[in-house]
């Protein structure tokens, strides 16, 4: 099929970007979306132009590196699918496709479609873990955990940290990402000793990074390639209010 691509080009973090148009021919339905961009880039290099920079790594939907806003939708038209697993059979001959980076103040553009998501690492560093040193653990089966709790914890833990939730949110909120981590440990007894400290510190960091507030649009859940539920945000809020009341830091 023949397509017209409209792609965000931005040479550096400081420079002003713009949408550029590229025709592409010979795309087949079996190609992945990123393979289609590989083909475009090979053509650009051969004709002496600078290729489009975009981020990718595993190309099997688990590392969370890739992420493009395709026709205005984070990760494109197919539900529960990261950009790297989107295939060209979702498009048809003659289509015009717009491709943009994640857009959020907290995710500055590095080049073209590549953004800096280090804000997520800083949120995790404030409490996205259970504090236990290597070698201090007791036997794994000494602490039974009900299957349902373990499964719920797992569901929250499958977040790949791609940032589609932020990119799709009108407020650029990181609530789904942050709450998924908090929720994972809320379901587990191991998470109990630090639960208040965890939620207070992670939420504070989320705010300091410049992410917006959640106002229940639900776009994050719709865009999430792993189907992380918005109920995690409710859990985070409940945990936050409890912790803030207890510590006397609740700000209204």
């Amino acid at each position, binding site marked *: 099929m023949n397509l017209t691509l409209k792609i965000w080009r931005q040479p550096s973090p400081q420079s002003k970007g713009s949408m550029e148009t590229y025709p592409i021919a010979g795309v087949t339905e079996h190609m992945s979306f990123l393979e289609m961009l590989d083909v475009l880039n*090979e053509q650009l290099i051969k004709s002496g132009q600078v290729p489009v920079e975009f981020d990718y790594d595993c190309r099997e939907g688990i*590392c969370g590196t890739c992420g493009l806003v395709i026709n205005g939708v984070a990760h494109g038209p197919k539900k529960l699918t990261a950009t790297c697993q989107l295939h060209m059979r979702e498009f048809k001959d003659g289509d015009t496709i717009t491709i943009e980076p994640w857009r959020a103040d907290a995710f500055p553009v590095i080049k073209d479609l590549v953004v800096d998501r280090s804000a997520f690492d800083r949120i995790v560093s404030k409490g996205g*873990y*259970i504090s236990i040193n*290597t070698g201090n*653990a007791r036997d794994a089966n000494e602490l039974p955990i009900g299957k349902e709790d373990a499964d719920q914890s797992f569901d929250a833990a*499958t977040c790949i940290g791609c940032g589609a939730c932020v990119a799709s949110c009108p407020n650029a909120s990181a609530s789904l990402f942050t709450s998924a981590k908090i929720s*994972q440990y809320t379901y587990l007894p191991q998470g109990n000793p630090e639960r208040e400290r965890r939620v207070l510190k992670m939420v504070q960091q989320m705010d300091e990074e410049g992410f917006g507030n959640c106002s229940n649009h639900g776009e994050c859940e719709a865009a999430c390639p792993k189907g992380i539920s918005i109920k995690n945000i409710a859990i985070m809020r409940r945990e936050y209010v409890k912790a803030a009341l207890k510590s006397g830091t609740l700000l209204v």
Partner: protein
Amino acid sequence: MSEIKIGDAIQGHIPDGEIAKKWDNYKANIGVVNPANKRKYTVLVIGTGLAGASAASSLAELGYNVKAFCIQDSPRRAHSIAAQGGINAAKNYQNDGDSTWRLFYDTVKGGDYRSREANVHRLAQVSVNIIDQCVAQGVPFARDYGGLLANRSFGGALVSRTFYARGQTGQQLLLGAYGAMMRQAELGKVSIFTHREMLDVIVVDGHAKGVTIRNLKTGEIESYAGDAVLLCSGGYGNVYFLSTNAMNSNATAAWRCHKKGAYFANPCFTQIHPTCIPVSGEYQSKLTLMSESLRNDGRVWVPKTKETAEKLRKGEIRPRDIAEADRDYYLERRYPTFGNLVPRDVASRNAKYVCDEGRGVNESGLAVFLDFADAINRLGRDAVEDRYGNLFEMYERITGENPYETPMQIFPAVHYTMGGLWVDYDLQTTIPGLFALGEANFSDHGANRLGASALMQGLADGYFVVPYTLGDYLAKQKPVNASDTSHPAFKTSVDEIKAQMEKLMAVNGDKTVLEFHRELGLKMWDYVGMSRTAEGLQKALAEIPKLREEFWNNVRIPGEGDGWNKNLEMAMRVADFLELGELMALDAFNRNESCGGHFREEYQTPEGEAQRNDDEYSYVAAWEYSGNPSEPVLHKEALQFDNVKLTQRSYK
């Protein structure tokens, strides 16, 4: 081809004593750094996958200063994240007779007797601690209704010892290790450097004392000093271009260490996984694995005749049109005892044979069927969906075909590399102070890795081995000033790297980096792939250096050397693959036997199985760089089997 130069034999520094007591004896007798002195040492950790993140967090907890580097935009994205199936541990929670000994034995046998007994036994011993550690970290492993941990079975074992978190075990384990490392980052003990690629190791007075790094975001070349370097940069499967590895997985950090004096061991030992989604076209950029667990219920087949296969390929008939009598369930036919559950190397080779006979089932003729029709009839669709639903969805997302209605098409793909930097029992390379962990080293899997053992080894090395062995090394070293990179070795290295980059940028030829990589990959796959011959390997040895020369004279790298430039990044990796590929071919040529993933057609049993030659090749081939990539020196480490009896593997 000139004769291979043979250097001195090398020793693995294996502690004395009976095998079950070696590790404890070792720990009781090593040097230890006083807690107050640990903070004077800085450890540079390259790579933040399971091995790197677990080492970084454990060492920081002990009090060392750690600098951790990764090529990704976040340490959480290292390719360990993609491991699906599970992690082995000799917990014996199932009461099915598992033990440290049995895990040790299975791993040595599964590796076709080409691994080091003492290392494997230690791995089996600490496996149980890994599960405890990960559960304490909040890794949500699968559990039974009683709240206890669930297990499943994997290839090459007769017990259920695999712990798992649905099909995302690697992700959950890595996020646990990453969290532990981020906790130390918050405490100021780990500094994290993302978008950083190691391009050189700095050797001062014979010891590793620093690294040269390229900042992939800004293009700057940076120097870091430290008291030791831990290489945790993964395997080199992408030398084949198409593999199940992540696109950015590469051999550069390890290869640059090799060129500075670290021996490279058993480079030809690569694992080809039998169940991957086949190549669909020339634009293909990577291959996706479908979990080994599918072979529990799926039946592998191709048409009995070439003619039927041709009709299939032309689309004249559909798979379901082929009568039972016209199908060849070749694994069940050839291996009645193990059937579809033969080990990975055997399953892969047999898929190649039937496709070579012209019986492949997709347009390219390079695919076989994995059919669930019988399982659906026997168990019902719901039960099959319960077991494999997420894998079927992934298959449909990629291929557009529904595996409930038509058989899956699968083909083998490069998945893991058992070879890597040579290390001794301490995980130390031949450069003192440079350690290699996880897939980057060679030590535990011999010629074939068993399923669910890669995660175990990465975490064993990082959490439970290197914190001891590194301490023993550092106890004998005076701490360096980590902010001082004034030693001339740093500047020499930076100048060399800048010169290499400028040279690459200046070529401005006609072929892209991707074209060279793809071409190398095809040669590697054809000559150093699933099935190798002396003749094919000689072709590889002749053609790879030519391709390398062409690369340096005809590659085109767009853009600028400073700032973000993916093509330049890739070009430097491909330059190294073009050297490593030749060493792999040479290693395969030198090893006149078949073992595990290394199958030489000249050496097979009358039934077509791998024929080892224990008298002549029961050794680790550790290659030393000589200054010319075509003329490395071979050092042999004799493998001694005091505990496991060497036998011919049979799966009939």
